[in-house]
C-alpha cells in the first residue's frame, strides 16, 4: 500500500479541475485499497462483525494518502472518490449475492426468516442504487449527497466540503432526495 500512497497523493494533486484521465487512474486504486481495508477489518472483527462506512473511509484516507502533502481540496476529492468506491463495492456484493441465490446447484442458506430477509436486503440495496441513478438525472448534486452519506458515511460538514456548498444546502438536498427516494422505492414495491 505504501507504493500507492505516493501515487494516490500525486494523482489527487493533479485532479484539480476534475481531470477525467486522472480520475480513471485513481478510481481503481481507491477501490482496491478500500476493499482491502474492509476485508482486513472483517477478519479482525470476526466476533463483532460490524463495519462502518465512516470508519472505513477515514481509515482509507489515513492509509492511502500522504498527510504531509495533501491540501484541503484534495482531502475532499478523496472522500468523494472513496464514497463512490464504497458504492461500487457494496453493489457488486449485492449483485453477487443475488446471483448466488438463484438456481439449484449453489449451496444456499435457506428458507428462514432471517435469510430470506438478507436476500431481500440485497435486492433492496440494488433497487436503491437504481433509484439513485434516476435521481442523478433530475439533480446530480442531490444524488451525490445521498451517495456520500448512504454509501460513504460522510457527515453533513464533509459533504458540504466535498461539494463546495453550504451545510444548509446539503440539509435541504438531503431532505428532498430522501423523500423522493422513499416515494420511488415504494412505487417499485407496488409494481413488483
Amino acid at each position, binding site marked *: 500500500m505504501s507504493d500507492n500512497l505516493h501515487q494516490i497523493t500525486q494523482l489527487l494533486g493533479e485532479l484539480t479541475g476534475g481531470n477525467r484521465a486522472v480520475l480513471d487512474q485513481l478510481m481503481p486504486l481507491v477501490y482496491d485499497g478500500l476493499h482491502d481495508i*474492509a*476485508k482486513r477489518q*472483517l*477478519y*479482525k*472483527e*470476526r*466476533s*463483532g*462483525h460490524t*463495519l*462502518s*462506512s465512516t470508519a*472505513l473511509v477515514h481509515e482509507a484516507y489515513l492509509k492511502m494518502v500522504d498527510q504531509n502533502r495533501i491540501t484541503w481540496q484534495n482531502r475532499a476529492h478523496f472522500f468523494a472518490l472513496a464514497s463512490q468506491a*464504497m*458504492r461500487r*463495492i*457494496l453493489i457488486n*456484493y*449485492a449483485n453477487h*449475492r443475488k446471483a448466488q*441465490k*438463484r*438456481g*439449484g*446447484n*449453489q*449451496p*444456499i*442458506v*435457506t*428458507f*428462514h*426468516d*432471517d*435469510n*430470506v430477509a*438478507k*436476500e431481500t*436486503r*440485497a435486492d*433492496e*440495496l440494488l433497487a*436503491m442504487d437504481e433509484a439513485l441513478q434516476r435521481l442523478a*438525472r*433530475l*439533480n446530480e448534486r442531490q444524488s451525490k449527497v*445521498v451517495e456520500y452519506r*448512504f*454509501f460513504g*458515511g460522510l457527515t453533513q460538514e464533509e459533504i458540504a466540503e466535498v461539494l463546495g456548498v453550504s451545510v444548509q444546502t446539503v440539509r*435541504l438536498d438531503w*431532505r*428532498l432526495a*430522501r*423523500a*423522493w427516494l*422513499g*416515494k420511488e*422505492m415504494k412505487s417499485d414495491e407496488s409494481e413488483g
Partner: protein
Amino acid sequence: MDQARWKRIEEIFESLLDYPPQSRPKALKGMCGGDEELEKEILLLLKEDARENSMIDGMAIDYVDLPGVVGQGHVIDSFRVERKIGEGGMSNVYMAQELTGKKRKIALKLLRPGLNTQSILRRFQREHEILARLRHPNIARLIKVGVSEDDQPYIAMEYIEGEPLDTYCDKRSLTIEERIELFQVVCRAVQHAHINKVVHRDLKPANILVEADGTVKLLDFGISKLIDTADEHTKITKTGVHVMTPQYAAPEQVRSLEITVATDIYALGVILYELVAGNPPLALDGLGIFDVQRKICTEEPQLPSEALTRPDYLGESHEARIASQRGTNIAALRKMLQGAMDTICQRALAKSPEDRYKMVEYLMYDLKRYVIGLGMGTSW
C-alpha cells in the same frame, strides 16, 4: 419528469418547509395554481418527508455481508493456510498445512464470522466425539474442530485430492454397471455412518471425491450439522439456519422438518438418478428460492428412462452425449433404465420419508439385483 419540473418541485418543497406541517397542504394548493399533478406529487413527498425510513436513514454497508478474507500464510491454531479451495454458504475451505504432529496437508473449513464462540465450542466438543468415531476407508477423517484464539471457528479434515463423482464417471465414459459399482461404495460408507448414528445431510457429487487410484472418499460427514448448530445461537429468531444444496435437498429439509437417514437416502437417489440418466430429477436452475422449495416438495420427477428425452433440456446432441458418456446409445440406455432403475429411483426419491428405502442396505440390495438383471439381459 424533466429537470425543469423537478426544479419547480424543489422550490415549492423548500418554501413549504417554512410553514408548520399542518398548514402545508393548504399553502401547497395556493402555490400549485391548479396544477393537480404537481400538487399530488409534492403531497407524496411531504408524506415521505414525515415518515421514518429505516433504509435511507441507515447505511448501505448494513445491507450486504462482505465476506472476510484469510490470506496465505495465515496461521490458525496449529494450521498454516496455503490457499482457498472452496466457497460455501456458511464457510470457506482452505488447503492448509499442519504445523505440528504429522505435518499433514489438511482441508480447513473456516466458518462465517460473527458466531457465538462459547456455544460453538460446547457443541463442537460434543459432535466431535461422535464424528471421530467414524473410521472408514471411504470417509475423509475429521481431524479437529475448534475455535482459534482470535475467535475463528474451524473444522480441520483430511485433505483429499480427487474429482467429484459425476465428473469422474463422465470423463472416463463409465458404463452403467461401473457407475453403480462406484455408487455402491458410496452407499456402504453412508451405511457405516448411519450405523454410527451420523447423518450426512449434504450428500452431493461435490462431496464425493474419487482419487486418482479410484478410491472413493466422502467428505464433510456430519459437518453441515456442526455448522447449523454453530449458527443457531447467533440468530435472533429461533428457527436457525440450514445449509443445503437445493438440487440434493429432500422435501423435509427445505421445510425444516426432522432430518433422518431417509434424508441421506433421498440425496443418494438424486445422485444415482444423475449418474444413470445424466439429468437432475427436478429442473431447478434459474428458479427463485420459493419456486425451488415448491418444486422439491410437490413435483414428481420424471422416470430416469423418460428423463433422457426431456423436452426442456434437450437437443438430440445432449441425449446422444449422455448415452455415449455411458458407453452406449440412447435406445439401449433407455431400455436399461426402464423398469427396475425407474422403480429404484422413484423409491429413493419419494416425497415422504416413510415411502423411501428404510435403510441404505435395502437400496444397495435392489441395485445389486438390478446389475445382475442387466447381466442376464433382462430387467427382472
